[in-house]
């Protein structure tokens, strides 16, 4: 993938300048958010708008904690998205292994069946899923948030294409060593595709972390809300006071940004794989 073709060439400065300008546009919202999280109401509601806060006080952050249990939202989001990711990946790995490496009657039909779920928009199933969840008393519970979101057809398809690239000889060899099909999955397939699984994990985690509609519908009480849902309620709860909203946005954005910057390579690889193999 990596090319060192142009080490000798000089930097392409005009293009660099264009890219820098574009990248400033991309991060401008974050800069604005950072500056505005410290503004006072008087700073915000003046015309024309002021860009810099009159002082760097943490009043707005305190206000957020006073209005909403922010830590609890974080906890809920982490618990649900990590669990969802785990379950989704387990399902994806087993299914992908079966479709990539095993033969059995009805395989094609089964594959079509699994694949077809990808074309059903989430909103179609939301209403009946809510009704079902309410029948089994899962409304406003962690299980209610988690369970309906654990099927990842996309990650399954992604993993299938990777498992297929594992040479069959490797599998046959372990078979001769006396491994069953379950052991082969555990001992050969998974260790040989950590990159792909890693990519799938990140992809799944990111989508669960950002998930909004289902948690919005299924949660009722404050202490079950996830971060995105809690933020939505904060908009009205703070009666749309921009500076308070910025402080909350700041606190919910910065940690994931830091995680992203640390794992930038994995993220990029993950997204690249989904793009090229999906």
């Amino acid at each position, binding site marked *: *993938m990596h090319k060192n073709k142009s080490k000798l060439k000089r930097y392409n400065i005009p293009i660099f300048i264009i890219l820098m300008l574009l990248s400033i546009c991309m991060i401008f919202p974050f800069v604005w958010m950072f500056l505005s999280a410290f503004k006072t109401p008087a700073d915000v509601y003046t015309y024309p708008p002021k860009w810099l806060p009159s002082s760097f006080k943490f009043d707005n952050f305190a206000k957020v904690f006073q209005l909403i249990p922010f830590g609890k939202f974080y906890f809920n989001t982490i618990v649900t998205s990590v669990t969802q990711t785990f379950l989704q990946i387990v399902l994806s790995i087993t299914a992908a292994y079966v479709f990539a490496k095993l033969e059995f009657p009805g395989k094609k039909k089964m594959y079509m*069946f699994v694949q077809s779920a990808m074309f059903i928009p989430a909103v179609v*199933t939301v*209403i009946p899923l809510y009704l079902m969840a309410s029948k089994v008393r899962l409304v406003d519970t962690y299980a209610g948030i988690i369970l309906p979101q654990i099927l990842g057809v996309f990650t399954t398809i992604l993993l299938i294409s990777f498992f297929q690239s594992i040479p069959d000889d490797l599998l046959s060899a372990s078979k001769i060593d006396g491994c069953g099909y379950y052991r082969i999955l555990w001992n050969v397939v998974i260790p040989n595709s950590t990159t792909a699984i890693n990519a799938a994990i990140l992809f799944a985690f990111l989508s669960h972390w950002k998930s909004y*509609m289902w948690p919005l519908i299924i949660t009722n009480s404050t202490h079950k809300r996830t971060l995105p849902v809690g933020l939505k309620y904060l908009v009205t709860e703070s009666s749309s006071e*921009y500076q308070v909203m910025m402080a909350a946005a700041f606190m*919910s954005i910065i940690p994931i940004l830091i995680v992203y910057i640390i794992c930038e390579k994995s993220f990029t690889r993950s997204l690249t794989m989904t*793009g090229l193999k999906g």
Partner: protein
Amino acid sequence: MNFRYSFAGKRYETIQTRAAYVLLAPTIIVLIALFIIPVIQVIKLSFTSLNSTTGASRFIGFKNYTYLFASPRFWQSVLNTTLFTIVKLTSEVLIALIIAVMLDSHVPFRKYLRVSFFAPVVVPVVASSIIWIWFFDPTLGPFNQILGVFGLPQSKWIYGKSTALMSIALFSIWRGIGYDIIVFLSGLQGISDSYIEAAHVDGATNLQIFFKIKLPLMRPVLAFVIMMGFIGSFQSFTEVDIMTPDGGPGGSTLLIVNYIYQQAFGNSKMGRGTAASILLFLIIFSMTYLQRKISDRREIRDA
């Protein structure tokens, strides 16, 4: 794929078949519980008048569908969604492609640039929507102020009937373009240098190389990004729900999914909501089917 032949003479090995079923069972069970049963229920519900406020429900035949077909608001949401998707998808793919090509050239701080383009993708949409609500404030927001400094006409952004949908699309492009850029960039970097060097030797210009060599090789990646982008933007919900929860001025930002949510949960008309969601499914399904057909035919023709 020829794993089976290495074991036994039989076409299917019993142990292997059993293992396959056992490993597949959880997925199938989840699939039935989360997709098959709900889809059957959706179809059933769409013929009832289920009202979540009163709890009353009775069979009303095709009344929900006839209501939708006659409802200007529903058609408005379909139109809005189509327009939104076209604008978002074409500009996002085009700009992403250009940026990816530029990033593929020899520039310093490449990692920083990549991070800055991709950062909006990892952030929860709700959080970034909150920031952009302020941007779009015609009075208190920085956008109009910046336009004013350059002497450009000011906009009403999400508060004006003619600009609201495009403002939401602008936000949507900002938050999604990083994904396209990264995918395109890796596609470009995956193209073997030998092709390009050979073309250089033949005296081709960079532009020619891009259109004659790189772009055709990128076609599968492009097709994938467009298909995913299409499915994604047709199901957009969050940004509108946060920025213009009532559907914007004159319903100008009302997207189909927001319409479904409003009908089913806001207006308590579960029957109408489910009927609308079935129509949405038909739209998405037929469009993806069409796209597949077209790209399949291309591949056959090209081959």
